[in-house]
């Protein structure tokens, strides 16, 4: 039996270079998630940009790219914003937005919720699926969830993998952010294998989407601060230097680290030592191969902006082959 090709999609949070990337590479992209909304405590869906982009949405759909709108949120508006009447309001507004802008689906990206949010979140997804599937045409629901390596860890989160795997049309598991406070890999091989295996044991293959990093992190250990960087970013344009610019300006040579399976380097700027860990196309390639072996139906990336041509080559040769 011929296995279907894996799908590929990505989030667009910036609406600048990510849209250029989408337009240049639309033949490789199955769906795109436009990060337009945040949830409020009363369930209101608040737009985070001045306006949506109807022409872009029409363009993507006309080019065969499914368009999701993403709604984000973290405590304190959550879990109140999805509970009881607030949750019903949120669902009502999502339905209205789908109708108004013709979204093919909604991606729910609620993060850092306490375990007390588990039942409200499951019920919210159940009701949202019911409401969006009753629309004409029916809309898709994607649930974007935190990565965990085991049932014990899952039980401490708001995400019931098994229930979401049954309820949602797609479950995107975010395989990144392993290191946060201190420098380290965004996703080491061993941990990735554990998490991938666990997710696959709970989520049906046809609904399981592995969300992978197309970004890196630049730590200043002395000040315990960090910021995220992407590949082709220019400091002049975005006030943050990307990987290519850092390499050039500071003459650094990234080192490939095993067993992490990720590039890292250090550089000094303004008298401060920086340590960078950066998932690159090589890392993306091994991750995609693992995802394919695990049997997931697709890959999503955070995020499309400032990706390098090598990333797109990897999509062509590893994901869409």
């Amino acid at each position, binding site marked *: 039996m011929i296995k279907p090709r894996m799908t590929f999609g990505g989030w667009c949070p910036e609406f600048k270079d990510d849209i250029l990337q989408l337009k240049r590479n639309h033949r490789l992209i199955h769906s795109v998630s436009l990060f337009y909304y945040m949830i409020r405590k009363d369930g209101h869906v608040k737009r985070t940009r001045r306006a949506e982009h109807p022409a872009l949405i029409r363009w993507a759909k006309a080019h065969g790219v499914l368009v999701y709108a993403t709604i984000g949120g973290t405590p304190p508006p959550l879990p109140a914003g999805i509970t009881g009447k607030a949750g019903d309001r949120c669902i009502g507004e999502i339905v209205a937005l789908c109708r108004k802008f013709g979204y093919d689906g909604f991606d729910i990206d609620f993060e850092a919720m306490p375990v007390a949010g588990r*039942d409200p979140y*499951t*019920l919210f997804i*159940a*009701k949202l*699926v*019911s409401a969006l*599937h*009753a629309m004409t045409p029916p809309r898709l629901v994607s649930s974007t969830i935190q990565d965990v390596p085991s049932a014990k860890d899952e039980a401490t989160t708001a995400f*019931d993998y*098994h*229930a979401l795997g*049954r*309820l949602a049309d797609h479950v995107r598991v975010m395989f990144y952010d392993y290191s946060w406070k201190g420098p380290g890999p965004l996703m080491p091989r061993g941990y990735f294998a554990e998490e991938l295996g666990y997710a696959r044991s709970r989520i049906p293959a046809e609904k399981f989407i592995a969300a992978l990093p197309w970004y890196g992190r630049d730590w200043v250990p002395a000040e315990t601060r960090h910021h995220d960087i992407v590949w082709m970013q220019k400091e002049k344009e975005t006030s943050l230097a990307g990987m290519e610019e850092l390499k050039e300006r500071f003459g650094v040579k990234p080192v490939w680290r095993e067993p992490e399976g990720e590039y890292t380097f250090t550089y000094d700027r303004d008298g401060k030592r920086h340590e960078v860990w950066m998932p690159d196309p090589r890392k993306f390639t091994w991750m995609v191969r693992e995802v394919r072996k695990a049997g997931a139906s697709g890959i999503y990336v955070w995020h499309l902006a400032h990706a390098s041509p090598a990333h797109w080559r990897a999509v062509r040769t590893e994901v869409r082959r």
Partner: protein
Amino acid sequence: MRRTALLAAAAIVSTALAGCGRPMYFGGWVSEWHPDVSLLKDNPRLFDSVSFSWCHIQADGSLKRVAPADRDELVKWAKKHGIKVYVTIGSGVPGITGKAGTRAVKELVAVCEQYGFDGVDVDIEMLGKPARDTYTLFITRLAEALKTMKTPRRLSVTLQEVQNEKDEANLCSDYAVAGRLADEVRIMCYDISWDEPGPIMSREAFARDLAFAKSRIPADKLVMAVPWYGRDWNITDKTHEDILWRMTDARDGIMGMDEIVGKFGGKPVWREPEGELSYTYTVGGKLHEVWMADPRQFEWMVDEVRKAGVRGVYIWQLEYASPEFIPVVRRKVKR
């Protein structure tokens, strides 16, 4: 010329095969009330699954067995014959809420282990809209617990029939959600007449039930539960009771359809547009009107289910059924 003839013959065979379709899923419930299961025991090869009314969840989440003791042997017999066996459970709201619900899930897992049940059939009725969240969380937890057992078990949910979104909104279960969480969703297509005499299930209502269910539940999970029973209304006293074909007054305290017709004479009348048998008689000066599901009604229902392309049919209930249903099962369901 010869090649053309071969192609024509192939086309005829292919059309004939397409018309035949595949055997559909078939099963039925055995209630806790009646000892007779002869129809099941005489025809094990026709059944894919059987569901036993087994226990009720009490307010504290503990299970109270309602199945008679002799059902244990019947479970073993069914499994030996390759029939999947479900434990059917009922409950009120308290038994599936919070800690009680957690206890109920644990005890159901234990019952599955103890008796080797292949799945749990949740038949919780009459809860209404206020219990929707409670019900959804209960079946969510139960589905997960059953799937993570050493040998994963199946979850069936049995839902009341509705014909549109508005009526569905008053149920404790959302069809689409049940269709996602459960492995099998059984829609009870009967009981449309209750206080006043009328069909157990008319053609029109059945078509609407089927269309609405299909719009919400994946076809490969959707099972239409159809009646093999009838209802006898005492119009004078404004009471009614359910009857089965081969019940007898002497043995069961209720006359079955065969006995009623034998005793009071005449013939039941086939009614259209309802597509169901009805019969009237007078006893002790009281006027009775009976509506009864029979093999002819079962046949048109199966035809509709097959046309809709859904998974199959389930029977309420198997005890004291007329043997005349069996040829229809062979010809229409398992063909």
